[in-house]
């Protein structure tokens, strides 16, 4: 009996376990999946927690309900991957030998990476919303908000779900307006990138949004430290941003396990072939989701498309056939813009977001790179799709793994 071991029961690991379980010859292969946590979060839902749109029951479930019964599931912390011995060491001392290993250990926020961020003032007037705890703490803060200066801040790239901070700024604008405190509130978007919208099409189509919503922009802000006493962010070149409430996306890093195993780059992301998803330098190790160092977005849709490619490539690897370079960087994301509207973007390594209709060319019902109510309903419906289709490894009807160019207005 050969053994496939998947590390991580997040979005990517769970979807891949389901895919593989359906296609693998189960008389010859056992599948084991390992994670220290039993609770699985619908991470796109974190955005809605601070505004009390979603509650705990919407976004947290026990992962056991999503792993096929005949997949061995182990709940234990992973101590180290030992590629030379083809084995994984668990915290309890157990060793798991593998023939094929899939790393799906994701990434998480590391507020300690920024001087002055994680200590004084943290969860008092400085919050993240990329963790369940941070999102809940921020909800309580916003409940009592009477006005002041809000800074929505990105520490450094890459981050999970790169559009979420922008969505947060838009939703905060709508929330404050609804509560009647918008005129007493300033919102500043602080980014290390040259702008809020850095792709040409997006900046042409969406560039007016910040001004429309009276959100000011501080671009090229490379944070050196947070001063919790002065409630001020300071950049390396001496720029300063004052705040009463800081909503930050701290540095994102791959799991410490990757560092302990000597498999990662400077942010613990695993060097990965950008088209086949094979780990660089390790034939029988594959990487999926946020754990990779790929220039694709760290997003659930990306993990979904990758899981389809990777299930096929693992079968080909078993048969000794060449891997298919089929992952094209495809990502598909809704962007909440507030007041019951949203945008939708669909793009890959080569094509930046453009306008058009989706998923049916020329028909829709969703509009790409355009603010509509239907897109917002799509974003809300996506929670059901995630729990009921995607996590179980089912495809979304009409949406292909490789990005489709049909129905898109592609500039020449």
């Amino acid at each position: 009996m050969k053994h496939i071991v998947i590390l991580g029961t997040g979005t990517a690991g769970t979807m891949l376990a389901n895919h593989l379980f359906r296609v693998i010859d189960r008389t010859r292969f056992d599948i084991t999946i390992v994670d220290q946590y039993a609770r699985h979060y619908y991470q796109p839902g974190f955005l809605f927690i601070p505004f009390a749109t979603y509650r705990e029951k919407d976004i947290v479930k026990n992962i056991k309900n999503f792993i096929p019964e005949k997949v061995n599931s182990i709940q234990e912390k992973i101590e180290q991957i030992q590629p030379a011995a083809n084995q994984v060491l668990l915290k309890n001392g157990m060793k798991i030998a593998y023939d094929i290993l899939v790393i799906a250990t994701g990434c998480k926020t590391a507020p300690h990476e920024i001087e002055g961020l994680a200590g004084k003032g943290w969860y008092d007037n400085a919050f993240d919303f990329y963790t369940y705890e941070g999102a809940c703490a921020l909800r309580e803060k916003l409940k009592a908000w009477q006005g002041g200066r809000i800074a929505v801040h990105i520490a450094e790239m890459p981050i999970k779900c790169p559009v979420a901070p922008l969505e947060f700024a838009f939703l905060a604008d709508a929330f404050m307006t609804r509560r009647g405190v918008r005129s007493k509130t300033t919102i500043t978007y602080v980014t290390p990138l040259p702008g809020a919208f850095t792709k040409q099409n997006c900046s042409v189509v969406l560039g007016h949004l910040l001004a429309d919503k009276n959100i000011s922009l501080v671009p090229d802000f490379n944070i050196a430290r947070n001063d919790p006493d002065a409630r001020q962010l300071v950049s390396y070149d001496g720029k300063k941003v004052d705040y009463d409430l800081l909503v930050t996306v701290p540095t994102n890093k791959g799991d410490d396990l990757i560092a302990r195993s000597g498999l990662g780059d400077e942010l613990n992301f695993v060097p990965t072939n950008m088209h086949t998803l094979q780990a660089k330098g390790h034939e029988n190790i594959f990487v999926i989701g946020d754990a990779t160092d790929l220039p694709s977005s760290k997003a659930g849709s990306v993990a979904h498309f990758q899981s389809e490619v990777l299930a096929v490539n693992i079968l080909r690897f078993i048969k000794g056939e060449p891997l298919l370079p089929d992952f094209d960087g495809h990502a598909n994301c809704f962007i909440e813009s507030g007041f019951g509207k949203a945008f939708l973007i669909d793009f890959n390594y080569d094509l930046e977001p453009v306008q058009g209709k989706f998923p049916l060319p020329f028909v829709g019902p969703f509009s790409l790179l355009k603010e509509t109510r239907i897109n917002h309903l799509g974003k809300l419906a996506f929670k059901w799709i995630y729990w009921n289709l995607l996590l179980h490894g089912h495809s979304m009807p009409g949406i292909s793994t490789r990005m489709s160019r049909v129905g898109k207005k592609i500039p020449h």
Partner: protein
Amino acid sequence: MATKIIAGKQVEVNEDGYLTDPSQWTKEIAAEIARQEGIPVLTDNHWKVLNYLQKEMRETGSLPTSRKLKVTGVMSIKELYELFPEGPLKKAAKIAGLAKPAGCV
């Protein structure tokens, strides 16, 4: 997209003046863009950064972050700001003939 003559060579650039085809880049073009960006002479330290950006782009398909330059010992962030004032990566990428650092939208 437009064509432009830089250092006597015709190249394709985008609306922000970034080269769109890295194969058209030359060291002379780098020196001329640097001058336009307020850097009169490219020193060995400038070149250390430019070469590293080009190597990372070739190997990983994306620009490294300033953290990566710091951690890999290429250059401290403070030095980066001294070499390429006001947005080092943005400026260095332009001089190296690479795309402007970008998010997903």
